[in-house]
């Protein structure tokens, strides 16, 4: 299968800088709170919520409200499908780099 054909298996959700950063952070830290996303990615609450909502609607991540001290906090983690897709995408990028090196 050609690289281009392989690439079509991933949807648009991945190809946005903030969402890709969010998925990378989730991959590294397993569970990430909204405040941590805000601290590391910056941006407004509304924009961050909108990106998170898209990821939830696409079934890449799930959210869970937990009590932290005196306040409630929303935490996000990968769904099985989301984690598998992200791993697949990382493998795809790795292959792309290897193929490029071979071509040089």
């Amino acid at each position, binding site marked *: 299968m050609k690289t281009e054909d392989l*690439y*079509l298996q*991933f*949807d*648009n959700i*991945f*190809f946005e*800088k903030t969402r*890709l*950063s969010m998925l*990378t*952070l989730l991959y*590294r*830290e*397993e*569970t*990430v*709170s*909204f*405040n*941590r996303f*805000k*601290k*590391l990615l910056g941006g407004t609450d509304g924009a961050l919520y909108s990106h998170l909502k898209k990821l939830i609607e696409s079934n890449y991540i799930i959210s869970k409200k*937990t009590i*932290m*001290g005196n306040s409630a*906090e929303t*935490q996000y983690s990968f769904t099985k499908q989301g984690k598998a897709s992200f791993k697949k995408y*990382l493998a795809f*990028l790795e292959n*792309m*780099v290897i193929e490029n090196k071979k071509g040089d």
Partner: protein
Amino acid sequence: MNKNHNENDRLQDLQVIKDMLQKVEERHLVESWSYFIWGAVIIIGGMIHFFTEYYFSFKDYDLALKVWLPVLCIGGLFEALGFIRKAAKESIPIFTKSFRYLFAAFIGIFIIFAILVITLLQLNAGHLVPVFINFFVALCFFGYALSAYPPLMFQAFVIIIAGIMLFVFNIPIPYSVLVTGAVIGGSFIWTGVQAKTSEVS
């Protein structure tokens, strides 16, 4: 499906992933002051051990229970506080699977450490305990360096060299305890300075 995402975009994706990982890669798990407290209690513990053994000839088990157990409890307590405060400050949830594993690993490491020290004492090899402690703490520093903060490799090597010196030159107790306390305590304080610097920056 995305048909307009070309090779340059994919390279940018790689850059985004790399940047994000770099942002979270080198970080301390606890606040800097808990390293300073660890360093101070270890150095003070080493000095108390030295003076009580030198002047009052306290036995190994007495020293383990009356000096080193309180040192571990005080250090552990403040480390736990430093960890909780750091997690709260960076909005990192602490009741996650990976932190539960980390906690279980700490307990396991502590049990192995205690069993090995007691075994050495029972075999009348108490003079090897400081050497063993140096190697054991160096191993812990290596583990921490690999999982969270690579610059700790330096401290790990300094502690290993100290352990080798104590072994090769057969430095007797209580002098070896004093040296071990100073080297390990100093390493914690140096780590605290690095953590403080990264907190400030």
